């Protein structure tokens, strides 16, 4: 097939045809997925290239045809004023010049369309040549075929391109080409003349088999995907925390798209921010108001933005001191809404937030009053989402590195809340009420029935909400991040959780509670943010403050219920979590208490029995000595285990890969090992190494097989006589204990040849 002039036949034509079809599959999605137009121009180029290659036209002629075609196409795409006019040529070459400069300096985004088109033509040209080489010289196409299938699979998975029919076309073309090439390879190996008889005997079954298997493949029922959609997982990996909420395995963290909730989570310890505060708080980011049956969306957003007001007066020394290390110029921004009504007593607190990740939104606790940040960005409050953005002068979002907040921590009075009953819904604006009690039409009726059942004995909203909140704390429900169902096409997310799976994480609990309360006509919204995080250290400068680390693992969602006269009041339905909301039951009694404190206060040490101080110190010292070592190792392992694991995994994979392909490289190592050894003793070692290598190759000497017999077998196997010649020397060395001087040097070539034969 290598000889010139013999390729212009039906077989080559067919090969080219299928190769063209395969290449076409690469071009099809380009039009749909990129802003490339006029794909037919490129197709025509491909055709010309293939036809030229097929007819083995004069190379120079072919090159000029392709060049002219390329230039004319580029001219038609981008230029006017006559093809032969000098003006466009000038522009064209200037453009090329500029783009080459861009390439050299790495400005990939600045490449012009003209240059891109030119590159695309060149790429196609190369591909056609490559295919020509694969088909006619190498007579192998599998790699290209495989790449095509992978390309289509990836596009089908990650883009909106639908490769259903493309994959069928590819399989047909690919298998046809592979089948034909195998036939030609066989002919070549067996040095047979291509005869019609043989050709028919091969091609007819090939055709039948491809047709049959394709037909079966099309008709056969397709199994549902065995694994959840990998896209969200991979995306979450690549974008760290931006879970787009499309179901499937997601990485835990904050994301803006909650339209499809459900599915398992994997933990992610990526730090999000640190807080310096005097107590633990939930940190909110935004809230959603509209439940779709699968997740949450915002019915309106950005329509009711309120700007923060700059307060020039109230910058005090304290703030300056706190933020000094970062930026001397600071601004004080006032939250545009009044925080709490008068009947809710509050305590003032402040906190500093140090972001580890870049988000344009501001993370804040409830009761926010002021934001103090370095000069530059201003803040707006999106009322619909309850979300705060930092913006620059051009209204582009800015990611704050650190800022300080002042906020009021409310102490709700339960008697005030328990006053609110269904009658009081009249107090709420009707559009507001309908917006926060809206439910999907097809929400199963049993959700409402269950909500009514749970709250049957309760009269006011607060008690109803508490009843539902504690309902989720019952034994029926399990907190789980892994084994979590994704609602099917006809499933409701809440219904599935309440009645089928009863297993899930915060989204399941919070959504369910919000929806159940809505069925009772109580306005709720779904709030997203972070739970209180992990205690890191006590503050050095301010003894009453602690530093908390909030990671993606702390991403959380909860429920807020609107109480007329009080505002949005948070509830924590998620099993195992406790909110930091403080409330009092009695106005006169000032005792306060966290609702369900499960996290221990970090710096509170358990009381110990009194010991003799010296003994105590001694024990302590002893203990701490041991513990500090243990702790530092533990800490080290805790912090670095990921990198350790990945290094081990990567090393393991590499080792496995090297082991897998050892037959390709190990013989060279052996040859190199003996290359510089000249003493005749090496012959014996080399011989044993050779035996071992043959064993690895799969032609092992039987235990009772003599060397001579084995050598004959090897020689027969490789059609050579080298092994026998080499073996004779070794026999003499082994069984006679003599060896003529220089034997190894004389036989090394034999040995190397034999070793090389084991390279596959």
């Amino acid at each position, binding site marked *: 097939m290598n000889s010139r002039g013999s390729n212009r036949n039906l077989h080559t034509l067919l090969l080219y045809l299928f190769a063209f079809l395969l290449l076409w599959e690469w071009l099809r999605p380009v039009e749909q997925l990129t802003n490339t137009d006029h794909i037919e121009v490129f197709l025509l180029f491909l055709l010309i290239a293939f036809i030229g290659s097929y007819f083995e036209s004069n190379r120079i002629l072919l090159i000029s045809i392709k060049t002219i075609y390329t230039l004319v196409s580029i001219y038609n795409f981008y230029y006017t004023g006559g093809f032969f006019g000098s003006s466009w040529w000038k522009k064209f070459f200037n453009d090329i010049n500029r783009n080459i400069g861009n390439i050299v300096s790495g400005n990939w985004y600045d490449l012009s369309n003209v240059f891109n088109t030119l590159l695309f033509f060149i790429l196609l040209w190369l591909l056609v040549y490559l295919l020509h080489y694969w088909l006619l010289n190498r007579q192998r196409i599998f790699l290209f075929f495989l790449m095509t299938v992978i390309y289509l699979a990836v596009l089908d998975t990650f883009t909106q391109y639908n490769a259903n029919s493309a994959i069928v076309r590819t399989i047909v073309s690919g298998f046809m080409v592979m089948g034909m090439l195998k036939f030609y390879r066989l002919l070549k190996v067996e040095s047979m003349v291509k005869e019609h008889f043989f050709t028919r005997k091969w091609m007819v079954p090939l055709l039948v088999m491809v047709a049959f298997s394709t037909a079966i493949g099309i008709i056969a029922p397709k199994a549902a995907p065995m694994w959840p959609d990998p896209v969200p997982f991979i995306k979450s990996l690549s974008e760290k925390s931006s879970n787009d909420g499309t179901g499937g395995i997601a990485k835990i963290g904050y994301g803006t798209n909650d339209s499809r909730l459900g599915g398992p989570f994997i933990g992610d310890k990526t730090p999000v921010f640190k807080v310096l505060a005097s107590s633990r708080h939930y940190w909110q980011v935004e809230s959603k108001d509209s439940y779709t049956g699968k997740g949450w969306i915002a019915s309106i957003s950005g329509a009711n933005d309120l700007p923060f007001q700059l307060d020039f007066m109230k910058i005090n020394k304290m703030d300056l001191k706190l933020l000094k290390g970062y930026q001397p110029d600071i601004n004080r921004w006032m939250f545009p809404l009044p925080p709490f009504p008068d009947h809710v007593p509050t305590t003032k607190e402040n906190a500093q937030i140090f972001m580890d990740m870049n988000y344009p939104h501001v993370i804040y606790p409830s009761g926010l009053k002021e934001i103090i940040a370095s000069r530059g960005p201003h803040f707006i409050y999106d009322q619909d989402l309850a979300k705060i953005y930092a913006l620059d002068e051009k209204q582009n979002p800015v990611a704050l590195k650190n800022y300080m907040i002042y906020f009021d921590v409310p102490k709700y009075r339960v008697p005030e809340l328990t006053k609110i009953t269904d009658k009081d819904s009249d107090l709420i604006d009707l559009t507001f009420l309908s917006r926060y009690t809206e439910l999907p039409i097809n929400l199963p009726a049993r959700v409402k029935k269950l909500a009514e059942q749970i709250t049957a004995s309760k009269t006011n909203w607060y008690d109803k909400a508490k009843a539902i909140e504690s309902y989720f704390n019952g034994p029926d429900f399990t907190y789980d991040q892994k084994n979590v169902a994704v609602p099917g096409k006809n499933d409701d997310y809440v219904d599935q959780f309440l009645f089928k799976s009863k297993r899930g994480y915060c989204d399941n609990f919070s959504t369910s509670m919000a929806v159940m309360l809505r069925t009772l006509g109580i306005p709720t919204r779904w709030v997203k943010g972070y739970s209180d995080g992990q205690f890191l250290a006590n503050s050095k400068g301010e003894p009453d403050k602690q530093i908390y680390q909030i990671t993606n693992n702390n991403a959380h969602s909860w429920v807020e219920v609107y109480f007329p006269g009080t505002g949005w009041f948070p509830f924590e339905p998620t099993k195992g979590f406790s909110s930091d909301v403080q409330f009092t039951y009695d106005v006169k009694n000032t005792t306060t208490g966290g609702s369900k404190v499960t996290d221990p206060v970090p710096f509170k040490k358990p009381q110990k029995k009194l010991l003799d101080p010296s003994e105590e110190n001694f024990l302590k010292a002893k203990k701490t000595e041991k513990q500090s070592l243990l702790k530092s190792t533990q800490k080290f392992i805790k912090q670095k285990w990921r990198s350790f694991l990945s290094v081990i995994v990567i090393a393991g994979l590499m080792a496995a890969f090297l082991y897998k392909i050892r037959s390709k490289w190990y013989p060279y190592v052996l040859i190199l090992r003996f290359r510089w050894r000249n003493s005749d003793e090496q012959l014996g070692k080399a011989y044993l190494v050779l035996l071992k290598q043959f064993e690895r190759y799969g032609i092992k000497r039987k*235990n009772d*097989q*003599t060397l*001579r017999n084995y050598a004959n077998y090897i020689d027969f196997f490789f059609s050579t006589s080298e092994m*026998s010649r080499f073996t004779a020397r070794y026999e003499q060395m*082994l*069984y*006679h*204990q003599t060896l003529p001087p220089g034997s190894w040097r004389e036989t090394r070539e034999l040995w190397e040849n034999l070793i090389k034969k084991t390279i596959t």
Partner: protein
Amino acid sequence: MSREQMNPQIESILNNIEKVMIGKRNVVELSLVALLAEGHVLLEDVPGVGKTMMVRALARSVNAQFKRIQFTPDLLPSDVTGVSIYNPKEMEFQFRPGPLMGNIILADEINRTSPKTQSALLEGMEESSVTVDGVTHQLAKPFFVMATQNPIEYEGTYPLPEAQLDRFLLKMKMGYPDIAEEMEVLNGAQRIPPIETLTPVIDLQGLRMLQEEMKDVFVDETIKRYIVDLANGTRNHDSVYLGASPRGSIALMKASRAYAYMYGRDYVIPDDVQYLAPFVFAHRILLKSEARFEGISAEDVIKRVQARTPVPVRRLVK
């Protein structure tokens, strides 16, 4: 096995014999091995397959004195060794040598004669001397006995005792020639028996030299170990009542030496041992009766022992 360059003198003997012996090169080779190793051969085969022909051709080729003893039940020891007869003229007993006093002796159907006569022959084979009437007579050198044994007749035969079988270096079967060979035999038979046309290619002196040179063939420790392993293997085999004796090991080493020498090598390789082991050991092994009932032959046992005895391919670790 790959064809090696044979010792030219031995090859000429072989070729000479092949002029009259069609086929059966391996049997001829083995006989030569025994001759070189100063051992004796027991041929177990039916009559008429060319045993006599081969021995005669061998004797002629080395210019040796050929004697044939046809063993019959009434044969006496003195018929083999010779007898002292009173010479009235000189008034003394004179020794008249028997057929054993040749170089190459064909002892035909050795199992037909009485144990007494058999032992006379075997003593001669072992000690290369015979004692008649108190006088020890040295046998000729080289001295080579090829005994034959008919395996199909049992009546009126005296099977050789194990201890005496041990005296034979090799035991082998001739077997029938294949069709082409037999056709050729028929063609040859039309003419005068060609055995008469054979000329010696080497004299007895030359043969003695070969026998001496053979002793210089080197047997490495690894090979000795291999031989011992094989002999041990026969002793420990489940089907074996009595395994190969140390004399068997010595015999195998000797035979291997001769074989290596025949192929122009001055050292023994495992291939030699492997090839010869069945011929050396088969008649030295006594199988258990269960094994015999199961139809297992001594050759089978040796093959199995060989299959599980690793061939030495590296130096012994001391």
